[in-house]
């Protein structure tokens, strides 16, 4: 059983100060940033693709895309383990290339990206759908290719929504626990992210360390929110938004 431990700010700072091992912060940030970049690219592409499709096939694809949002992370993690494990289709493929991802750093990225993907996809799609189609049509009559229409008209106009999706995805990636544990395990210095470090600290009754990691997580989240706040305000003042 976990016994309540008196927590003093002093002891937290001591832990942080002599926590030789800052690796969970580094791993968490590296994982979240990488996962968010991948999610941004794939989520945008998927949203742009989906915006032009109608019908049952597109609805089915929607269902698959949104599955990680409704499934428990452990289920997602288990399914990923089946796909990327030694006997899974992706695992077999990677084995042929002489590598494996399970219980390695890339596994944390895969887990975080898959779990945060639906948030990016949904917000990006909503943002793109909000763009007045007359702007896109005007661009087409002016000779612009579909890629140029997307890059120069649709994306800039949808940008505030896409950015919101990016931040949601980053937050979700930062907090990912269940799927990461299933696919990447807890290897200190390689796959142990902050949430996993917290879990194992609590499990080994090291409440001070758990609190310390929680404090770090809160700090990162606050910085993120503050950055978002200032960025949106700056956007609000900028350029065509003014007046």
């Amino acid at each position, binding site marked *: 059983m976990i016994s309540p431990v008196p927590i003093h700010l002093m002891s937290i700072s001591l832990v942080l100060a002599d926590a030789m091992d800052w690796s969970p912060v580094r791993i968490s940030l590296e994982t979240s940033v990488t996962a968010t970049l991948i999610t941004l690219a794939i989520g945008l592409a998927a949203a742009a693709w989906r915006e032009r499709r109608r019908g049952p096939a597109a609805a089915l694809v929607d269902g698959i895309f949104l599955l990680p949002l409704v499934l428990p992370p452990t289920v997602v993690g288990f399914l990923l383990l089946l796909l990327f494990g030694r006997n899974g289709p992706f695992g077999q493929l990677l084995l042929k290339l002489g590598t494996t991802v399970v219980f390695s750093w890339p596994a944390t990225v895969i887990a975080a990206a898959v779990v945060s993907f639906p948030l990016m996809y949904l917000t990006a799609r909503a943002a793109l759908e909000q763009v007045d189609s007359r*702007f896109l*049509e*005007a*661009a*087409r*009559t*002016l*000779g612009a290719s579909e890629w140029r229409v997307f890059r120069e008209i649709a994306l800039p*106009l949808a940008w505030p929504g896409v950015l919101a999706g990016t931040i949601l995805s980053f937050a979700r990636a930062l907090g990912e626990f269940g799927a990461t544990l299933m696919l990447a395990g807890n290897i200190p210095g390689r796959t142990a992210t902050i949430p996993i470090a917290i879990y194992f600290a609590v499990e080994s009754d090291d409440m001070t360390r758990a609190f310390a990691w929680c404090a770090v997580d809160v700090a990162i989240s606050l910085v993120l929110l503050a950055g978002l706040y200032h960025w949106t305000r700056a956007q609000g003042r900028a350029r*065509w938004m003014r007046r």
Partner: protein
Amino acid sequence: MSLQVQIAKQLPNFGLDVSFTAGETPLGILGPSGAGKTMLLRCIAGLEQPDRGRIELNGRVLLDTAGRVRVPARERRIGLLFQHYALFPNRTVAENVAFGLHNLPDDEKMRKLAALLDQTHARGFESRYPRELSGGEQQRVALARALSIEPEALLLDEPLSALDTHLRSQVEAQLQETFGVYRRPTLLVTHNIEEAYRLGEQLLVLARGRVAAFGAKGEIFRHPPSLEVAQLTGCKNFSRARAISDHLVDALDWGCQLRVAQTLARPAAHVGIRAHHIDFAEPSSAPAAGSNNDNIFPCWLARSSETPFRITLYLQLHRPPGESGEYHLQAEVFKEKWERFRDTPQPWRVRLAPDSLLLLPD
């Protein structure tokens, strides 16, 4: 230079089925809201796909459903001016216009941008954003942008409807100036009769997706081919009619016989007269000789409505109006003329001149 259009497309409430050819003079497309005017322009620009048909611009086939040709909008080189202009809100005026000059080298781009802004009188606010412009300025920028691709045809969707009244005549003059320079197939969609007449040389009247009339504007206004076209070109007074002889019809709803100038090629189903063609035989003037005495009837005023310079009189023929406010004719006269007979005792004598009467087959 010509644009040949022949398309059909099923819409939720009716079918659009239109064919016409436009030359170098502006073609006004007149029709009520929901007649398919905007859809027609969108089909020509390539933003909508007709179910079947063929579009040819200066010998270039843009659409041929039989031959499976569908040139995408970006390759049609057709300038489209949207009803609310659709200027890119995240780009400045210069960036909006330059969007169509994408493929040019920088110095050439600057030169053309300046020329376009000069041509459309849009100089001086290049670095502003669309929401910082007035409606008239937005319109000029949108026109400059539409012309930037050197379009082979120009389509304008209600170009003046988003403007305040006092701006319209000014913008209209600029449009006319542009048309004068441009000399390429130009289609101008509007639901405003006077706009269509002033800006178009040719006129196409669209009603529920079909061409109700197509030809020289003067001819269509003088001799509308049907009741529908007469209504759509602003005629307010109609009566069912039955031919009595070659130059005489019985106006059933107006309860009178009318001498007509046109010979009846086909049996007229309706007779109509435009509100401003209704004349009044002034009591002071002596009864004139000859045909001027044709079609004069006693009438009573049922009610009236004023605009700054003109007055609309709602008239009941043959007898004083009842309580229900019904009327036979609505006449529009200048107030100066109205002042001359407003105080004379009723009945007044209304004159429906034979050469003003429209004979309308079904």
